[in-house]
């Protein structure tokens, strides 16, 4: 991990406690974390800033989904790696995510595996 510049990660999750644990996990791993509790909040952040990686829960507030957030991200920069977290292990969402090039993790995540994968994704996206 280059010390000069920490990778910047946007985490979107509608449950505050879960969001907090993600944030702590990622910061411990050396990421610079920006957290958002809703898609609306995420949109605001995304409008101002570019991230190295976007993590988003599938189910967000009031029928909003993670896919909306990812669309917004991709609209600005199609190369930003996206990772979706979900408790709903169904084929439809999995396929939809895969088609969009979004990596899917099922909750509860295997933390070590999850962290390892994020590193790989970032390495690949920086070429």
């Amino acid at each position: 991990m280059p010390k000069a510049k920490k990778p910047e990660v946007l985490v979107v999750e509608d449950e505050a406690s879960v969001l907090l644990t993600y944030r702590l996990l990622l910061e411990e791993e050396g990421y610079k974390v920006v957290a958002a509790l809703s898609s609306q909040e995420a949109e605001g952040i995304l409008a101002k800033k570019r991230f190295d990686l976007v993590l988003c829960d599938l189910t967000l507030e009031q029928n909003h989904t993670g896919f909306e957030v990812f669309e917004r991200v991709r609209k600005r920069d199609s190369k930003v790696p996206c990772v979706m977290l979900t408790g709903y292990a169904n084929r439809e969402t999995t396929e939809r995510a895969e088609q969009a090039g979004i990596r899917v993790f099922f909750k509860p995540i295997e933390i070590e595996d999850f962290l390892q994968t994020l590193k790989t994704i970032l390495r690949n996206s920086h070429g």
Partner: protein
Amino acid sequence: MATPLLRKAVPDSESFAERRKSVRDSTALRLLSAERSEEIFPILLEEIVALGFARALVLGADFESGAVRPVAALKYQPSQLQKFHSSLWAGENPLISLWHKGKPAVLSPSAGDREPLYCHPLLYRNRNQCWEAERERRQDCLAVQNFRSPQKLALQEQVCASCGMRAYAAMAVVQVGRRNHNGQLRQLSNLIETANRYLARLFKVEHYYNRMREMDITISQMHAVMQSMADPVILTDSHHRVIMLNKAAERFFKMPEGVTEGGARAVELNNLYFSAALSSMAVSGTESHRDLTLVDVMEGEEVLFEAVCAPTFTSDRVRSGMVTVMRDVTDLRRADQEVRANLQKLRDAEEVVRQDRDRLNLVIENVGDPIVVADEAAKTVLLDPLAKELFGLGDTPRQAALVRNQARLDAYLTAFTFSFADNQNRPLRLYNPASNSEIEYAARSGKIYDARGQVAYTVTVLRDLTAWKKLEQLQMERRMLEVEKFAATGRLAGTIAHEINNPLEAIKNAIYLLPGKLKPPAQPVYDILKSETERVTRIVRQMLGLYRNTDQVGPFDLNSVVEDTLTLFARQLSTATINVEKQLGKLPPIVGSADQFRQVLSNLVVNARDSMAKGGRLAIRTRHVRASDGVHGSVNIVLADTGCGIPVDMLQSVFEPFVSTKGEKGTGLGLWIVKGIVENHSGSIRVRSRPGKGTIFKLAFPIVR
């Protein structure tokens, strides 16, 4: 026949008495010298003429024809003999009537005759009995009877009751001249009587001679009979010494030329066995039989005989020996045994047939569907109780429904019996005799052929489709209910899982962040926290597996699902030193959710892995089992491991939720989910397990087209 030498010895000058004596002696000597009965009459006639009579003849009688004719004559011209030809039954002939009286007499000259005739009848007579009468101790010997009372018997009855011999009857006829005195007549009478005695003696000898020749012929005939017999015949004397053997017996009891040592021993043994058998039979009774095993000297084979033994006796009832006839019963006994064995077989077969019939009757009575058996003319011969209710018992049912049912059955049976089909499956509408309503039956018929390939019987089973359909509907509904229940449970589980998932995620992540921030005494508490959270995670994952309402359902290849699953677990299995043997048969696609099948296989493979902590073998087989119709059938999957097995007391409940053999490590949901998915696909799952040996799961899915 004259004997000149003897006659010469008689001098002419001797006194009457001397001459008479000498005549008598010389005559006796001459007669004695005769060796055949035919020689007697010529000598007699010569002696009569020598006595001083002019001429003489002997008349002979033939008892067969009754003819009387001169058999010997002296000094008669052939023309003179003609008048002596007569018949025994010529009663008017004085000669014949005199002959019948049996006593000598002088016959006065008749017309044409110049001089009287002395007639002396000669009849076979003897002081002693013939040997036949003697042997048989009879008192009716003809010779003796004639000797005692010659006049008693008519000439034509001169046949001996003892030996059947026909006596001779003759009459000496001597012409008496004027010069012949009474003394000469007495001498003549004596001479004739003497001649008759000699004649009788010769006749007896000749009879014996003839008798002997007859016996000789009989003996040679008997001998030929004995030799020609295929069975051994042995004649033994009273000391059991062999007198005679036939050829068949020689084979066993006579030492052949150039016999081997073994052959000689066989003959000795045969003789030994035979005399032993004879002795015991002689002791046991007058006639006896017993089995005797002898060795054929030529062939060296053992032959089983039945020896039948009969004693022989002398004329005075003394036992003279034995006749033994032996019958080769080797084949007979074998045949007898075969017959017995066949009889037993037949009885056994009969028993089997009886049992089969009883069993069949039992089957027919318990099928639960009406059964009709008809003969080759489509006439019903057997109805089971249910069929009787439908078609009635007798030939003339009174109920209208029964009449109509019978008519429909007759039409159906006739059409089937005379069709070319071996079996048929047709709907048949019949009336319920109780309610008079129409019921639809499915009639399934088959033909039974006899040995010639002709239809012997037809069997028809009727299935009440109405009832069957009702039952099927009920079963379907029950299954739907099960499926619905399972789905509802799944939905509930899924919802709960989702709700739990997020807090669980936070807890998990928080626990992950804890290490390093804890004081050492808190470590055990942290460990509990960590392991129990992992357990909750596993339960939630399993529950989520239950709820996949958006799964794609369609035809898929089960084998590729198996391959995928095994690939997924390949690393884990090889780390656990588990050998995987897969045997994937060619399968038709099955319709369902491939994802759910993946879950089924994953759960079963994980269970197998966990059961083989020290390694082992996991066999997976898939197979297409074709149904008799060739269209449907099922796809079967077998998973067999060599793991720790399932305890006997748990085997019943492994498919129930929250039952686990893995203790803390298991969720108790794996097999419950497997069963749910299998039943969702109309499949079946069975488990067999032996603790310490391993577990086998067998899954079967019907192929739906």
